[in-house]
């Protein structure tokens, strides 16, 4: 399963989980099957005035993710994720590695 993680810096699995979902600095996509990072990319929408949450949630959909980890998203992003069947797992501290370990049971499907 591919997991979409909102992080604040680009430091592999040691990247810190972002403080805000839509405005996180980077997005890390992790594959739980191969236990490897698929990609880390900069949040191109970080400074957009509007629609950030929607754009990020759409990105998670486009990347084919089945779960997302990060702080509580806004209602619009949440609605998009829910409609796409992407499981939202709330975390706002620790590293990407710790988050994956912590949520491992929920990611085993």
């Amino acid at each position: 399963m591919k997991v979409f993680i909102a992080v604040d810096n680009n430091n592999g699995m040691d990247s810190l989980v972002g403080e805000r979902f839509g405005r996180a600095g980077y997005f890390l996509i992790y594959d739980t099957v191969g236990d490897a990072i698929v990609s880390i990319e900069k949040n191109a929408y970080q400074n957009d005035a509007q629609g950030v949450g929607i754009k990020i949630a759409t990105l998670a959909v486009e990347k084919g993710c089945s779960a997302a980890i990060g702080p509580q998203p806004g209602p619009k992003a949440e609605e998009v994720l829910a409609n796409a069947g992407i499981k939202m797992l709330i975390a706002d501290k620790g590293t990407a590695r710790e988050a994956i370990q912590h949520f491992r049971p929920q990611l085993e499907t």
Partner: protein
Amino acid sequence: MIIAVASGKGGTGKTLVTTALALSAGECTYIDLDVEEPNGAIFLKPDIREEIAYTVPVPVIDKDKCTFCGACARACVYHALVVIPISRSTVVFPELCHSCGVCGFVCPVEGAVRETHREIGKIRKGNRGSIQFIEGRLNIGQPSAVPLISGITSNYITGENGRLYLLDSSPGTACPVVETLKNSDYVLLVTEPTPFGLNDLELAVELVRDMGKKAGIIINKDDERQTLIDDFCRRVQLPILLRIPYSLEIQEAYSRGIPLTEVRPVMKTQLKDLMGRITDGRW
């Protein structure tokens, strides 16, 4: 003739002035375009004859016809639409939609994008004697007053020859004000002789000048000892058309919804004269 009454900030007496103008004019159309907080009716006490729900079109996507190609979502610059192919679903955020129609235009499938209507506010119409009264009232939680304002001005300002329209604008200098002033021939700016009043007036004058509108100033709560508005008007060469004296009696009447023309009947002549000069192009 379309006269808009605006002010850089709220609470300067904009509605006090507009309603007094309407009551002095005789035959006219008063339109309350301060749609987030319309209060002209408090002073004019019109008989409301009609209430219309004002709606804007928003798309609905027919899931049986849609191929989930995503063309509509990519074309929507307001991000009001999301298409999710994996779950064969779509999400529309009506409050983000600007009713531009692009989604329906780009959709390759006939009938996949349909239109529905979303109410954003109410328009109330009525009369007070020879004054035709129109008011816009934005529903709570609507992000923008602009569509309602443009809907009212485009439907009800018919440009009938010689008819006087008085537009009570929202305060400030943001989009709703621009939308209101856009349709006017002349702008009356109401201000108070205080440093705050001056500051907001400066912004309002800048806006009016940018829009290329003719304008004049009305000083409310005038105090002869305070000349800062006079000095400013001299500098930017704008005429001061009227001074409403600072008076507890007027203030008190205002708080009870009594129009200026009832507390100071003599002002009727002054206000009528003022409108006459504007209409004749003398100001």
